[in-house]
């Protein structure tokens, strides 16, 4: 083998600087956030506004004790959707169809919850289960599309999502919608079919527990089980996995099904929470799917990091609105910041990969 010429990236000053950076996995995301915050500050200042007040507003808006309840509930949803992205990400696949899976979950939950008669103790679990099954099955479709027809999962999920969204809003409008309502939405669910409350909190409910359990489960599976190991192996080198006896096709199927199921569960939780009905578009407008994807990317799919990165995007989301209210900084800035974080992160991770890759050359 001939020696490859030294890649010019190694000579890049930024890189030299970055090579000094600590090795701990958390360092990369943190650095990305810091840089992003600085860039954001520049943008705010350029817009003739005061970065400090803006950021202060974001933080106070997000952590204001009065609204903490709400903030936590949003955090739970973003964590949930981060799992949706993270599971396939672990094996090197992108699920961009979270929206479709989310609304299908909402639909299933709404249909089950709508059928009152189910005893209180059963209604919620059954609704959530139904959501998981329907959304999971839908998510799973992308796996055979990839293994049989070679359509990348990133593409098929992307194309399938709007179809699901359209079908759900059609059903809401013409089939299961409330009569005489001005917008397409279901009737309110009976008391028996509403998400169990946590104390007297009005936003956060048992859904939070469920999401936390899901995250713990993912963390265990990822680090402690054969399946999790196989996910990471395939993510690192598909051929190696196949040679080692991993059934890549099945693994992809399982991962996509799990991913979709989680999305479905999140959809169910949101739907079964106040105001206890499924309203057309209400599941998508907060943009949990992309916030979750961003959090997952920022965490590199690592289970332990997701709750942390999710906090960031929760703050940006909840605080963004507050920032607009009190500091008159347009809320779009939170999208800007999220975007910058991800891009900066992508560039930073390269540096790390480079470091190991360069050792790999010899």
């Amino acid at each position: 083998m001939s020696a490859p010429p030294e890649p010019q990236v190694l000579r890049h000053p930024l890189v030299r600087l970055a090579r000094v950076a600590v090795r701990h996995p958390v360092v990369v995301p943190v650095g990305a956030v810091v840089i992003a915050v600085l860039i954001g500050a520049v943008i705010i200042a350029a817009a003739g506004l005061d970065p400090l007040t803006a950021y202060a507003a974001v933080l106070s808006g997000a952590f204001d004790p009065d609204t903490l309840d709400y903030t936590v509930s949003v955090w739970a949803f973003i964590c949930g959707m981060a799992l949706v992205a993270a599971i396939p990400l672990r094996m090197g696949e992108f699920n961009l169809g979270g929206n479709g899976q989310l609304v299908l979950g909402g639909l299933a939950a709404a249909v089950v919850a709508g059928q009152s008669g189910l005893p209180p103790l059963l209604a919620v679990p059954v609704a959530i289960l139904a959501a998981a099954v329907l959304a999971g099955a839908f998510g799973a479709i992308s796996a055979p599309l990839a293994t049989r027809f070679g359509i990348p999962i990133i593409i098929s999920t992307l194309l399938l999502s709007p179809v699901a969204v359209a079908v759900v809003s059609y059903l809401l409008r013409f089939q299961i919608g409330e009569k005489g309502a001005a917008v397409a939405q279901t009737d309110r669910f009976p008391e028996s079919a509403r998400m169990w409350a946590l104390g007297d909190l009005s936003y956060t409910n048992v859904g939070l527990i469920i999401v936390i359990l899901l995250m713990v489960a993912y963390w265990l599976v990822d680090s402690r089980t054969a399946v999790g190991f196989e996910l990471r192996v395939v993510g690192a080198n598909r051929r190696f996995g196949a040679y080692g006896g991993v059934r890549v096709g099945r693994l992809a199927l399982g991962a996509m099904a799990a991913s979709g199921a989680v999305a479905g569960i999140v959809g169910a939780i949101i739907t079964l929470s106040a105001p206890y009905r499924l309203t057309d578009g209400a599941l998508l407008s907060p943009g949990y799917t992309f916030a979750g994807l961003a959090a997952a990317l920022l965490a590199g799919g690592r289970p332990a990091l997701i709750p942390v990165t999710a906090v960031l995007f929760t703050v940006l989301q909840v605080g963004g609105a507050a920032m607009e209210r009190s500091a008159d900084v347009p809320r779009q800035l939170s999208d800007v910041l999220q975007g910058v974080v991800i891009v900066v992160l992508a560039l930073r991770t390269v540096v790390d990969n480079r470091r190991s890759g360069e050792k790999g050359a010899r």
Partner: protein
Amino acid sequence: ASAGGNAEAGGDATEASLILITPTAIGSNNFLQLASDGAEEAADKYNASLDVYESEDPASIQQNLDAAIREKPDVIIGVSFSVLDQFTEAAIDYPDQQFLLIDTSAEEPTENLTAAVFKEYEATYLTGVEAGLLTEKNNIGVVASLDTPFLHRWVDPFFAGAQSVNPDVTTGAQYVGGDNPFGDQARSKAQAQILADAGADYIQAAASGGNLGVFEAASENSVAAFGVDTNQCLDSPGNVVDNAIKRVDVALVESVGDILDGTTGGFASYGLAEGGVSLTGLEEGVADSQCLIADHPDVIEQVTAIRDQIIAGDIVVEDPLTAG
């Protein structure tokens, strides 16, 4: 809560406080824009402070509502049907707080829950009449943002009005839809183009921010359009016949005034009779409204007559919402 002093304008210190909560980002949604404009006018008139809370989804509506209640303003104003659930409950839980619903009303409202609803359908009926009288191809259409029951208030009555004066007029409705139904001019324009290709020569635009797309299509075809809410003839002179205007400002100012004066509860409905809705063509200053209708005094005459019949109750325009 302070019942708010009498409403004299002037004076630096604000004498009252208002909070407006919208169900979604105002963005390019004309209707919400109109509401916040109205709230501003009310604020000016009663020398009140105004905060606008834009929501994203039911949960954030609730969150904004809670935040608003903590602020203890004189009036919390909620816009559209989407906030009904949350407001109805809040009104029960906080009897001392005054709430005002715009464009929707509760079945059994409490005393502190006032509502102002509009009979947009009466105005749209009249634009329909104009279309029916003006159309040469006997073919008219509507471009609306979404196929939702509420938005049918700009569809069905338009056709009804047209058919009332021109029984053999054919009609077609197109809905923008897509990822951005209230703002995707490209799609709304394409929808209007389809109606034009199908032979329509008068099109009611009910696509919110998308109306501009409809007007563009009108300008590029031998088609004229109708606007909504405000005088949109100004947005595209020469292409807009008339507008089904909606005086959210008037309604808001009046209702807020009533509440501040202590007359609360029940609901006021603003139709042609109350002057809550109307047509640009039926108002003063048609001449320089830039609206095409100005060139058709005869039509204006007939429409005026029908308007009076509606006010008199001789003609009853059906509300698509209650019609189911």
